């Protein structure tokens, strides 16, 4: 009986995007992330799911074979904080939907505004990113972050989790605001402190009203009316959806921890360059962190020059779970290099890889679906010719839910066109 459709991958040739989401990949080094690496391993994928991983798998007769000899296979990477699909060109307001007006917009959902035709999607996935969080970025309580696959004709097809987390920017005492091009605005400390206290009060009051709403709803009060904003708060106060809290300085981080405790809600810290100052408490309270850029300047003039690069290692040593987020749109493709910088400054390589795969999946509650190469999970796979954390490595193939993803993008097309200009 003839094997149907045997395909050999030649270096650099992208597979045509087809509807076929079943294949048998063999002969590659498989980096499962959840366990040990498998040299000369195989992965069996059926209907988009991984159904077998190992060294001794037999190639089924009805399925196409992908030869992976000399290549490396990793889970597709996850960027835990982006504006992909929400913003096209940062300087042009018409192209950005990340920042809505108002301080309390929990009912807004990022997925609504994600543009599946954004150029940033093919650019990011060309370097192995298969899933991202798209984050609303307005003031205070700005809306629901959505977890999306970077493939799909519509946002429905892209959706992994519509309401992955509720974004809160922890109130802070802000005395200096630097805006381009207006410059710096200075606020006296006493005024800034009052603004901060007012915001904290309003935040607590809002959560209070959400609890009252919940009681009224469950008691089926006669005058109960649906309020979309408060409705959106229910999963958060009932512990089904985490609060994703952007907190920069130690004070805001401690405020956030206290707030989450008082409200009895689950929380994920975002950015948190000073998380190292509260690492032990984060560990005790099981609060995970989505760390911002490691390739960043230290916040204070007298900080050690490598402060942003060593924070990941500090969290790792304290036992805090963390993932990396690019907090960007156009630089999502460089997510693995943020992770690599942390490795240069003390984070074990395997941990860095986890921070852009399995840890991220666990933090966002989708570790049963993605984040590692394990049976039952989606076949979100990256085939490379080397370590994805090193720049020179090329992504040869990318699969999202078992389907080969077209790695072509605007940049490659312009490259080909102008390299060949006579």
């Amino acid at each position: 009986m003839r094997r149907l459709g045997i395909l050999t991958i030649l270096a650099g040739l992208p597979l045509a995007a087809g509807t076929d989401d079943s294949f048998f990949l063999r002969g590659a080094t498989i980096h499962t992330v959840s366990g040990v690496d498998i040299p000369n391993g195989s992965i069996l994928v059926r209907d988009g799911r991984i159904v077998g991983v190992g060294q001794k798998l037999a190639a089924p007769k009805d399925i196409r074979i992908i030869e992976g000899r000399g290549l490396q296979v990793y889970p597709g990477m996850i960027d835990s904080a982006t504006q992909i699909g929400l913003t096209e060109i940062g300087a042009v307001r018409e192209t950005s939907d990340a920042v809505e007006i108002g301080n309390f917009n929990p009912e807004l959902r990022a997925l609504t505004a994600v543009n599946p035709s954004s150029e940033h999607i093919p650019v990011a996935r060309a370097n192995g990113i298969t899933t991202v969080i798209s984050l609303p970025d307005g003031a205070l309580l700005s809306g629901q972050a959505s977890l999306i696959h970077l493939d799909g004709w519509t946002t429905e097809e892209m959706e992994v989790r519509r309401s992955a987390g509720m974004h809160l920017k922890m109130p802070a005492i802000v005395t200096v605001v630097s805006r381009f091009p207006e410059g710096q605005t200075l606020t006296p400390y006493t005024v800034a402190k009052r603004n901060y206290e007012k915001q904290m009060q309003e935040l607590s009051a809002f959560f209070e009203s959400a609890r009252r709403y919940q009681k009224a709803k469950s008691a089926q009060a006669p005058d109960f009316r649906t309020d979309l904003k408060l409705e959106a708060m229910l999963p958060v106060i009932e512990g089904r959806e985490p609060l994703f809290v952007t907190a920069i300085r130690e004070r805001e981080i401690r405020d956030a921890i206290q707030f989450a405790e008082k409200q009895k809600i689950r929380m994920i810290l975002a950015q948190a360059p000073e998380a190292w100052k509260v690492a032990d408490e984060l560990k005790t309270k099981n609060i995970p962190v989505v760390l911002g850029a490691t390739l960043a300047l230290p916040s204070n003039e007298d900080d050690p020059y490598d402060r942003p690069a060593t924070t990941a290692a500090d969290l790792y040593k304290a036992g805090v779970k963390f993932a990396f987020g690019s907090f960007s749109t156009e630089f999502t493709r460089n997510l693995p290099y943020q992770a690599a910088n942390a490795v240069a400054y003390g984070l074990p390589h395997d941990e860095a890889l986890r921070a852009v795969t399995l840890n991220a999946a666990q933090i966002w509650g989708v570790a049963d679906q993605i984040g590692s190469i394990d049976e039952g999970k989606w076949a979100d796979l990256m085939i490379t010719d080397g370590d994805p954390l090193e720049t020179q490595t090329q992504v040869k193939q990318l699969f999202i839910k078992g389907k080969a993803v077209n790695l072509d993008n605007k940049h490659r097309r312009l490259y080909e066109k102008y390299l060949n200009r006579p």
Partner: protein
Amino acid sequence: MRKLVALFLAGFAIYAAPDTVFRNATILTVTRGTLKGNLIVRDGKIADIGDNVIIPIGANVIDATGMYLMPGIIDCHSHIIAESINEGSVSVSSMVRIGDVLNPEDIAIYRALAGGVTTANILHGSANSIGGQCTVVKMRWGKSASELVFEGAMPGIKFALGENPKRRGATPAFGATAVRYPATRMGVEDVIREAFTDAKAYQASWRAYEAKRAKGEIAIPPARDLKLEPLVEVLDGKRLVHAHCYRQDEILMLLQVADEFGFRIRTLQHVLEGYKVAKEIAAHGAGASTFSDWWAYKVEAYDAIPYNAAIMTRKGVLVSINSDDAELMRHLNTEAAKTMKYGGLSETEALSLVTINPARQLMIDQRVGSLETGKDADMVLYDKHPLSNFAKVRKVMIDGQIYFDRDKDIAARPERDARKKALMKKGTEEKKPGFAQRPTQ
């Protein structure tokens, strides 16, 4: 007799400053290949490089076994150290000078050092079609402002095309009370042509005056115009033009304007669509200094591609990779590595983008940009290959002196922390009797 000579020389060795030697390093010369061996530094210059070079007696030896030595990184576009960046009130500000506003205590210098940068081209900003005069500096942390200046480097001037110089003309942002010409790319070209038309006339009037004086005639010198003088220097080939530009049409426009007035653009900066007109850039003889992979932050950057440097290199343009950013400049080695991924440049070609190429663009390549005997001892010691994302800078040397040492930086931290704690404690505790206390801020 020989004994006397030997004693005489030995005496010299004792009184002269000792040589420094990097021993057993993998030496990436950039221009002369890669070798494993020793590099001898003497009197601020590279004295010898080789796999069999003998270490002089009494030399200060740095054991570089397992480590990589490369030339100090040169950033062709930076605004650190400058206390002011944009004299944005007028469209032609050629009379202002970055060299007059250098702050040697800018912590960005130290942080750039820690990223392997030894020389940078500090530019006026991009608010003006014709900006101010630029200065090349070395990252001599701890020295005074005048001691930062790269002595003998040819002076430069900044031009800017596209969205930035026309931004103020279009909207009253920036707190401006009046709009400022130009508001379009057409106007940007006009501003430059008007300025050089005036400069030509100014140059002619001075030449006429000098001709009269040469003949011994009585003549009244023209009034000095500090705005036009640097533009005449450009016409005379004595001042290098670094032009911020993005789109292919404005790139071609500027090359044509330069041809019209008889001068050459030394470098096109950013030049994110340079790949579309690489042929023309190479024909004009302009260099290109660009980002590794920035794009999409504004409309004119929407067609930017990470293959830009590689395409222009293949088409014969002298290309460098720059930062224009205090953070990005800390890892120009790994930014250069991106050209290997996007466009297939070799290791040496990639390293050249941040060493010998910017040196050539700034015309300081006789002094810096590669590890060759006779050049300045400006170099960086990495613990891994500098094109690896896992590499860290261990030491940075400028003019034969170590200006950054990671081990010493780390060792000094506990003492610094203790001193800071003590000072802060003092600040909160100390109360002078008889003086009214300010409310705590």
